[in-house]
């Protein structure tokens, strides 16, 4: 009996050991890391998140990816990213299960990256591109992951290899817009992209739509105070009495208080409040509460890109268009072109990128202009990438960034010098 139980436990142990060994054999742990520093030659502007002094956090991040083959068709993958810009808090950028059918169809479910533009699905993998960071004129969408599903179908015509990817899901998360936090619910996030490669050439077109709800609010107290003060002013101007004078004084006092409160609100809350007041003042024919808010308003993102890489020369041209139904964010057109030439282990590259906000037509656009929402930027980046070994790249970059227009007024320009080490493991 005793021998029996010993044998049983040995067998059980052996079985467990085998299982553990088998699964650890299928478990892959890998990752990427970037360490960078940047210095801006001016103190009064912020560009790419950099201000005047040396900043070591902006371009620094660490990501670990774990994948486990569950069976022949199924793999579970997770990617945890810890960013310097987020005080090295760790976030799951990816967490999904892949199911691969035999017919070149792949289904994924879980937390995925939104395939907005060409680099969107590996936007933080510095090692994967020549730049230290993606050109922010084009890559500036304040969210990058969603929870849902995507399907990828691959097919070829001769040597032209294609893949169509469709995705559907939702993102319920805190978003950082203009460096302030907003609780968001991005529903019905749906998109489609087609990527083709032919020899050294690659092409991509894509579209993505979501319905944005943000926790932005109108500062009712401020709206009220402005209205009361305006009426008090008009009353006093029409027939100045002692009463009307003291009423005006009181109204001005509360307006001043309300103004202090208002100035502490987030930028989009201020915009939403300002929209209501300005629409009244400017006498605009507009459903301002409905149009200048975020309550399921659609946002559309379009992209086309062309790539070339023959090993010695590479090129990418990419155009994007963003259309917001809400007047509080301005429609945008952006594009970039980048050329690179390789000399052995060293690659030099030159990039021009530009972004331009496009005001709505009619009264809606007049209100956007009065709210000083629009911006325009252009950048020229010259850089060097040195592949130290097959897993390590050293990068040096100088970027001239011109904020042609920032928040509706003429902006400033600056040079950003940066250095980074990108590693994969």
């Amino acid at each position, binding site marked *: 009996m005793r021998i029996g139980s010993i044998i049983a436990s040995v067998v059980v142990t052996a079985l467990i050991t085998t299982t553990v060994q088998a699964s650890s054999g299928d478990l892959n742990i890998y990752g990427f890391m970037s360490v960078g520093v940047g210095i801006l030659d001016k103190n009064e502007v912020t560009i790419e998140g950099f201000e005047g002094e040396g900043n070591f956090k902006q371009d620094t991040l660490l990501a670990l990816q774990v994948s486990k083959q569950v069976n022949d068709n199924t793999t579970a993958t997770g990617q945890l990213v810890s960013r310097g810009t987020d005080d090295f808090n760790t976030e799951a950028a990816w967490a999904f299960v892949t199911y691969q059918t035999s017919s*070149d169809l792949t289904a994924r479910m879980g937390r995925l990256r939104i395939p907005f533009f060409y680099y969107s*699905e590996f936007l933080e993998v510095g*090692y994967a591109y020549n730049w230290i960071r993606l050109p922010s004129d084009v890559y500036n969408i304040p969210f990058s992951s969603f929870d849902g599903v995507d399907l990828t179908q691959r097919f070829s015509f001769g040597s032209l290899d294609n893949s169509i990817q469709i995705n559907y899901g939702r993102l319920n998360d805190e978003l950082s817009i203009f460096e302030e936090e907003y609780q968001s619910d991005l529903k019905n996030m749906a998109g489609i992209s087609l990527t083709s490669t032919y020899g050294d050439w690659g092409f991509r077109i894509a579209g993505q739509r979501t319905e944005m709800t943000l926790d932005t609010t109108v500062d009712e107290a401020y709206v009220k105070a402005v209205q009361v003060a305006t009426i008090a002013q008009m009353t006093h101007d029409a027939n100045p009495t002692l009463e009307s004078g003291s009423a005006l004084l009181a109204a001005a006092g509360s307006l001043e208080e309300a103004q202090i409160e208002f100035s502490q609100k987030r930028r989009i809350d201020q915009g939403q409040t300002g929209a209501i007041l300005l629409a009244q003042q400017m006498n605009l024919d507009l459903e301002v509460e409905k149009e200048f808010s975020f309550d399921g308003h659609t946002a559309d993102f379009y992209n086309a890109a062309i790539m070339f890489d023959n090993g010695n020369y590479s090129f990418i041209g990419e155009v994007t268009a963003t259309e917001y139904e809400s007047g509080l964010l301005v429609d945008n057109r952006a594009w970039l072109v980048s050329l690179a030439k390789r000399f052995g282990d060293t690659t030099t590259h030159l990039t021009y990128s530009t972004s331009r906000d496009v005001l709505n037509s009619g009264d809606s656009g007049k209100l956007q202009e009065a709210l000083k929402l629009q911006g325009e930027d252009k950048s020229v980046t010259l850089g060097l990438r040195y*592949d130290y070994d097959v897993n390590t790249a050293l990068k040096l970059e100088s970027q001239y960034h011109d904020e042609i227009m920032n928040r509706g007024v003429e902006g400033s320009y600056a040079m950003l010098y940066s250095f980074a080490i990108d590693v994969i493991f």
Partner: protein
Amino acid sequence: MKLIMKLMVSILLFAPVFICAVQAEVAVIVSLDNKNTYTSINKDLVARVFLAKVSKFPDGTIAKPVNLKQGHYLREAFNRDFLSKTESQLSRYWSRLRFSGKASLPKEVGNIAEMKLAVANDPALIGYIDAMDVDDTIKVVHKY
């Protein structure tokens, strides 16, 4: 004079290795059970399979690439002759696929003997060996 002698000796010593590495003829191989023919699998298709752009042989069966480990002289020859890319460029190419969950790295084996064994036993696999190591356990589909 002595220095020149030393130089000549070292050149002579290293020259054969160098020449050998340059001249290594790469033979792309599949299992004997693989029904695809020499003519159907061209260099372009080999490259597309090894870059995860295609996952099927011309007859519709699944194709999985097998690599020799990094640093192997034949892997370098294969990368250069078939993929026209350096190891660093491939590493960058794969980082895009791996970190966006699109594909994982091809399976790797340590040496040519392991490569032959793995490919011989699985008709889905496609690998490469030195043309000098070709024997009747595997089938050559492309040589360069």
